């Protein structure tokens, strides 16, 4: 009986993983379309006012948050719940810091290239879509800290954590493409 239950759990995990991957693949086409729009409308033009150091800084913050998320997920998979909570809280903090950075960026951009201009249209849309994903990612990470998932972790089921962390990494991957596209190309 235990064996059957175990197989069922493994099947379920594989099903959940495939579903999440398909969602991520589907979502990546959204970013593909946005990046395409950037090159279609603006080519590789970049306004000189864009704050490149700030862009690098928030990129590093986001990559650090991905590392924290990875550590949290790995700890959860190994049953180290304390370390898991610490790292996911750190991820949340870094994610929030990233959003603060985007806010700074936006307030500068509003002055130099507001959203009603050609480059502003692209800049605000791309960073806006990405920031929306960051916000949903933060909400999802918060869900992973709620009592339901903690109880499941104690039973050795870390799927919930794995799922939200995967989504968080995806948000990071999207930024890896967005950062050079908006801040660096020429």
């Amino acid at each position, binding site marked *: 009986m235990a064996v059957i239950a175990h197989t069922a759990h493994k099947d379920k995990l594989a099903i959940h*993983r495939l579903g999440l991957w398909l969602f991520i693949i589907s979502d990546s086409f959204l970013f593909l379309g946005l990046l395409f729009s950037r090159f279609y409308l603006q080519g590789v033009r970049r306004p000189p006012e864009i704050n490149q150091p700030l862009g690098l800084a928030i*990129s590093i913050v986001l990559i650090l948050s991905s590392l924290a*998320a*990875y550590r949290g997920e790995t*700890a959860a998979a190994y049953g180290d719940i304390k370390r898991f909570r610490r790292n996911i809280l750190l991820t949340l903090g870094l994610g929030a810091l990233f959003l603060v950075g985007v806010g700074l960026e936006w307030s500068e951009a509003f002055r130099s290239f507001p959203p009603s201009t050609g480059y502003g249209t692209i800049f605000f849309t791309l960073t806006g879509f990405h920031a929306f994903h960051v916000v949903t990612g933060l909400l999802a990470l918060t869900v992973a800290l709620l009592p339901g998932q903690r109880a499941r972790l104690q039973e050795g089921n870390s799927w919930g954590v794995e799922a939200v962390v995967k989504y968080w*990494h995806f948000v*990071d991957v999207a930024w890896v493409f967005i*950062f*050079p596209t908006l801040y660096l190309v020429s």
Partner: protein
Amino acid sequence: MSKPSLAAKLRLGFYVLGALMVVEVTEYVIGTRVKRGAWPYLAILTLPGALPILYYFMHIKQLWHHEE
């Protein structure tokens, strides 16, 4: 296949982080120093930026390879 220890996996995270930092900073240097035609180098550099995350952090292998 024996399961790697937690410490080994956490260490792997730092290696990936290091690689990503190198990529980001290289991109930044190219983006700030190269005045014209930087985009092909940046386009190539997105791959070493994205693939480690996909491979080591997101375990993309799950899609075609069933472990456990």
